């Protein structure tokens, strides 16, 4: 079945250097909406490259997320280094030539569309666009141009992360660039083409394999347990835990729990219980420890700790 985003399951999850990646924005949105998984956007957002607040593709999946997707039959793992080298090896010269030709033609077509859009913009009085970029290439081109201008700034002032006034003034120039007709654009796609990327033909075979790297025994049952209770989970290292648990999509909700998974007989010092309780309470969260009951496999116990208030 294909989802709202046109994603067909099972979809490939790409393994590079022991990490699991997604490069397709549709799959990213699908995984978020249908599987309550956010992963971590770790790439630079080309529209605004000089900042770390909004990041872009690729999306790195936590090992737990990749494992659960595979377990549910929603995804399968592809060794991406292999997939590329095999694809490149088996590429036919004729296909390559056709690909490059198509690329060139597309570039020209796009340039013409851009010029047309710029023309229309000059004519019409522009009303402010809504925040969502549901728009044509023209809008994107504008944002791309803005990014470029900042790069220029970086050179002059010595890179600063956030341009404020300068960016604004430059922006007015960017709106009306009158692109010279010689200008051509070559997009670098986020995802690889089948031409040079050989996906395994029978994903079923791969699913049967043991996931490597596999998620940790102490954290995976707990991850699954919370996921089944409709929580969204994200890595919590920087907050002093293993996961942050959100009652809904982190785009909209604050987290409720800072979560640490433990083995059933793993000892935890009382001082660290105090630290955990204190950590959560300072930011209106509860600190949660939990793990699988060794004596009753499948049963996960969780305990939530908060400051007593006195």
């Amino acid at each position, binding site marked *: 079945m294909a989802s709202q985003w046109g994603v067909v399951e099972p979809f490939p999850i790409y393994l590079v250097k022991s990490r699991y990646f997604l490069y397709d924005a549709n799959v990213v949105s699908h995984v978020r909406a249908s599987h309550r998984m956010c992963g971590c956007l770790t790439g630079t957002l080309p529209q605004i490259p000089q900042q*770390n607040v909004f*990041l872009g593709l690729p999306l790195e999946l936590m090992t737990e997320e990749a494992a659960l997707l595979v377990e549910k039959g929603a995804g399968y793992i592809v060794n991406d280094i292999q997939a590329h080298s095999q694809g490149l090896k088996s590429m036919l010269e004729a296909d390559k030539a056709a690909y490059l030709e198509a690329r060139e033609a597309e570039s020209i077509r796009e340039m013409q569309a851009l010029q047309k859009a710029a023309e229309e913009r000059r004519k019409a009085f522009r009303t402010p666009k809504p925040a969502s970029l549901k728009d044509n290439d023209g809008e994107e081109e504008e944002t791309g141009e803005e990014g470029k201008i900042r790069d220029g700034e970086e050179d002059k002032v010595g890179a600063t992360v956030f341009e404020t006034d300068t960016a604004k003034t430059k922006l007015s120039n960017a709106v009306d660039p009158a692109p010279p007709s010689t200008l051509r654009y070559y997009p670098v796609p986020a995802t690889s083409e089948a031409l040079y990327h050989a996906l395994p033909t029978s994903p079923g075979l791969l699913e049967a394999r043991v996931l490597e790297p596999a998620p940790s025994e102490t954290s995976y049952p707990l991850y699954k347990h919370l996921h089944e209770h409709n929580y969204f989970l994200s890595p*919590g290292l*920087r*907050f*002093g835990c293993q996961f942050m648990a959100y009652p809904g999509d982190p785009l909209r909700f604050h987290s409720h729990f800072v979560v640490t998974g433990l083995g059933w007989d793993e000892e935890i010092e009382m001082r660290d219980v105090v630290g*955990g309780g204190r950590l959560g309470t300072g*930011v209106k969260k509860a600190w949660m420890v939990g793990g699988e009951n060794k004596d009753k496999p499948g049963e996960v116990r969780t305990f939530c700790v908060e400051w007593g208030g006195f």
Partner: protein
Amino acid sequence: MTSSAPSITITPADSTPTHPAPTFTLPTPPAAPARYKKPNYNVVHALPLPLTTVPLPPLIPHNPLSLLHIIIAYLFPGTTSHPSPLHVGAFHASTRAIHVTDPQSIKAFWEHGFFGKGSLSRSEPTWVIRKRRALGVIGQNEALTSEEVTMRRREERKEFKRERARAEKERREKQLAEEGKIVRGPDDDQEKEQRDSAAAASSSSKSITFATVELPPRRRSPERPVVEVEDLEHLQLTLEESFFLSFGLGVLQIKDSKTDEIIPQKDLLSMFRCQSYFPPRTPDMLQPDDPFLLNYVVYHHFRSLGWVVKSGIKFAVDYLLYNRGPVFTHAEFAILVLPAYSHPYWDHDRVRKEEREKKPWHWLHCINRVSSQVKKTLILVYVEVPPPLEKTGAEDNVPKMLARYKVREVALRRWLVSRNRD
């Protein structure tokens, strides 16, 4: 966390502090938010240790120190450094601590170096004042204690929080009503009542039975009854504080609470080491990394550098360091004691090398977050644990034994790219 973002700075630190020797040029502490008058802490806490010094030249003529010396000379006759008789504390196995009950000793220990803690207070023993106020013996605003100031502030905040929650609920219900998902009406209250009675019914049918609900009296009596309030509180000294005061400063004698006899100085170390385990251990089980030894080495180290060292339990660390004392400023540093088994003797000790020395990173982030929430710099204090002494009896020289431990401080700070770039 999205990518590579969180960073912390690790700094090997030099722990030499500013010595809090009595100087009177310091600025006065920030103005108190409370409506009561603070004592002049600069005078009360002029001495950093419960010992008297005799400076060679008299200082500036109009310096209050000279006056203070007269008072001290009056309280402690003679020019000797130590009080006579020495302070006495009682070791209680029940709390694994030393209890001090003599008011003069409590005063000396608290005021001069902030040793100990009131067993029923948050820091200075003030239980009897609070009790007397609750009974109406003293006025509402007389000699307010820190506990009471805290309490009053919390009361004020409660109403605000409830209001906020109410506004939030109101907003949500309005939205739901607009979307036609709920019908709001006068029967809202009725619903609640029904729920309450249902709860009461289920409560009577299968609840765990308790004694009848008795709310604590919140007495606000207008008259002032004359009541004798027996002070149930003592000043509690930890084993480390007690050892510093007896072995280090020589101002404290420790007696056994059961026999009422003074415990010989030479027996203290071994006893304290045994008591630092829960439950206590026997002397034959002692190790070079007993909790007492690790903690005492660090405690002594920072005390000998002039810091006021207090428990850090509330912030999940071992100690807090105050520059002059808790009444003056917040603690600037939070101390975490970490044993280091660098000596080759420990190389094959799996438990120590693998479990005690290795801590996960998220644990450190947790402690560091807690510290930075309260604006303290976290300092890891590594204590290099020496191998056990070969011949028994070598432990008989305590200063030499302690000198086998070595400390190294590492300061930790969160490092934000945006703050360090410019």
